[in-house]
């Protein structure tokens, strides 16, 4: 995760001035949100699934060490290799090493947020290995030198014309090419990459401990190509992705897919267990699983934020968030954006974005309502705000809060302050400062009532 170029305030202020961006985001998120409502309503037991999923996640995270060891043993038993990466650097270096040992010059990748998190592509390029993103959205992100701005729709911020222009430059399509021509050009280009690649790199939507299975959910079929054409398959996953049993997928697949894209099931669901076995016709010669911590153990040890590890990255919270819709994903300065990103970024990094991201929410609660695992995102944002309140940046606010609480605990003083406020009001209204000035940018300041209620009530 690279540091944000600008704080959330500056970035979001710029974003709200771009109506095209807003429109582009809204078209996608509204569509996803509407479909989510439709397909979740179809399942009368959807809320039962949510409760079950929550319990499974709680149980798994409470016994994570045990399930990870079970997973490791199961992967090894099927002829796969397991690697543990403490942080981003270790994770990226591990994948680079595997690629080098495989003699790889070119690798293909399917969509994976954790490889964005550990900045794998940069490490590969530095090692002289060329990664090619094969998810259409990620491919566009890659050739434009951009960053994904949504968990599952990485180029939500781009318009069709932007992509057409990009493809004209990189793939030689006509400037006015319609979408089918653009996708066909990408398909032809990527087909070559699939055939030439030595290693295929994927993430994992779920890891099954009892079988050592990697589960991939996708719609383009590229992940299946990435895992079947190259000689070597490397799956990179956060340690929180593990589920105890194969049967748990019956709970999580419908929850994830319906919450994410509003489909009943994605076009492709791949369950991959180890490399090609004796007598099997498909699959890679070698399989590696890279398990990434990168801050997750710390979050696990944190009772207030632990729940964030239950996230399945469905993006339902982004799609209903009024702040995400207007600020756009890049404003969060992290690969994880939206409400869950505002929690994950400071949580995983031990504080990056702490002073602004937890405040980038009106706490409207729409995110909590739609989360398939019922993560209390607003509650965690408030908990993170309390940590922001302890930083050096907040020392003046901290003092002001102490004074305010002192005053509000003394009703008589509160009544006097009410009188004083009315004396000062004309001055403050004429020259509003600080928070009042920021309010008054686009909204008239409310007027104090000439007599507060408590005075009338006392009479």
């Amino acid at each position: 995760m690279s540091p944000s170029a600008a704080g959330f305030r500056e970035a979001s202020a710029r974003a709200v001035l771009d109506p095209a961006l807003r429109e582009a985001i809204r078209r996608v998120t509204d569509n996803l949100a509407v479909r989510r409502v439709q397909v979740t309503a179809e399942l009368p037991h959807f809320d039962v699934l949510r409760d079950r999923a929550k319990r499974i996640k709680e149980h798994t995270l409470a016994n994570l060490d045990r399930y990870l060891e079970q997973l490791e043993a199961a992967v090894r038993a099927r002829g796969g290799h397991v690697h543990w990466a403490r942080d981003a650097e270790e994770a990226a270096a591990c994948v680079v090493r595997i690629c080098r040992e495989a003699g790889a010059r070119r690798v293909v990748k399917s969509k994976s947020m954790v490889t964005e998190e550990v900045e794998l592509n940069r490490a590969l390029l530095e090692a002289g290995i060329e990664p090619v993103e094969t998810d259409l959205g990620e491919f566009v992100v890659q050739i434009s030198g951009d960053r994904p701005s949504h968990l599952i729709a990485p180029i939500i911020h781009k318009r069709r014309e932007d992509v057409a222009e990009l493809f004209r430059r990189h793939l030689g399509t006509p400037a006015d090419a319609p979408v089918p021509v653009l996708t066909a050009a990408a398909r032809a280009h990527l087909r070559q990459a699939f055939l030439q690649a030595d290693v295929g790199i994927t993430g994992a939507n779920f890891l099954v401990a009892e079988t050592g299975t990697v589960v991939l959910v996708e719609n383009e079929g590229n992940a299946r190509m990435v895992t079947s054409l190259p000689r070597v398959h490397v799956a990179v996953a956060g340690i929180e992705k593990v589920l105890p049993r194969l049967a748990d997928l019956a709970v999580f697949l419908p929850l994830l897919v319906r919450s994410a894209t509003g489909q009943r099931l994605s076009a492709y669901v791949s369950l991959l267990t180890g490399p090609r076995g004796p007598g099997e016709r498909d699959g890679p010669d070698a399989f590696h699983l890279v398990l990434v911590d990168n801050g997750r153990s710390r979050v696990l040890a944190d009772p207030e934020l632990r729940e964030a590890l239950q996230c399945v990255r469905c993006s339902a919270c982004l799609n209903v968030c009024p702040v995400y819709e207007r600020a756009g994903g890049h404003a969060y300065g992290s690969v994880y954006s939206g409400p869950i990103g505002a929690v994950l970024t400071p949580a995983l990094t031990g504080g990056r974005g702490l002073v602004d991201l937890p405040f980038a929410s009106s706490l409207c609660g729409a995110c909590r309502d739609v989360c398939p695992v019922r993560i209390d995102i607003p509650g965690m944002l408030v908990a993170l705000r309390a940590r922001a309140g302890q930083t050096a940046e907040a020392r003046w606010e901290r003092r002001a809060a102490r004074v305010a609480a002192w005053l509000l605990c003394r009703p008589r003083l509160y009544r006097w302050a009410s009188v004083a406020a009315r004396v000062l009001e004309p001055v403050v209204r004429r020259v509003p400062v600080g928070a009042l000035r920021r309010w008054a940018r686009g909204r008239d300041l409310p007027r104090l009532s000439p007599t507060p209620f408590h005075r009338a009530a006392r009479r």
Partner: protein
Amino acid sequence: MPDRPHRVALFVTCLVDQFAPSVARGTLQVLERVGLRAEVPGGQTCCGQPLLNDGFPDQAARLARRWVETFEPFDAVVAPSGSCVATVREFYPRVLAGSPWEGRARAVAQRTYELSEFLVRVLGVEDVGARFPHRVALHASCHQLRSLGAADCARAVLRRVAGLELVDLAHPEACCGFGGVFSVKFPEVSEAMLRDKLQDVSATTAEVLVSTDLGCLLHLAGGLSRKGVRLRCLHLAEVLGGS
């Protein structure tokens, strides 16, 4: 439905106290009409939500303890704010966790209600005998809607007001962009949300915009007057308390 409470307290809330005493008067009138003489405990100030949301739960806890002490003696506490009630219910047990106050807070929180929620879910009353011959759009606050799950209570009582025509917003569940500290930390995004909310209201035939929460209402009214739009903003209690 819970038993009909004998001793009922009005939690005025600090915003109502300072900006709109008529909301407190309206609440008292409504309660009187349904046969309850609510007391207004002296010494009440603020629930502490602003401090909590600014990142100072320890300071909020000081107010929470005071609040619990003030309202503990009553059978029911009624407030003209879904947001303040949500703070008491959802966050008091958290900021007071691990102390004897936690249990006390949970106990009072259980009998603390937003006005329309109290009318509908505790008293079983939807018709309070109010009359308000206008077209009204309702903005239930996010806390009213999602934390309390009581937006339908506000709608139910408004529907029974004589002469009142409730008009639908296209996006009734959309946040107005207030969010307390959010509105001043990120004014640009907050204003963008407000603009859309006001556009939604303007697209209807509503003559009056009604909300369950004064915070939202001051935000909405501030946006309307800045735009020079003349649309009355009233609190639910002012509508129900009028005759």
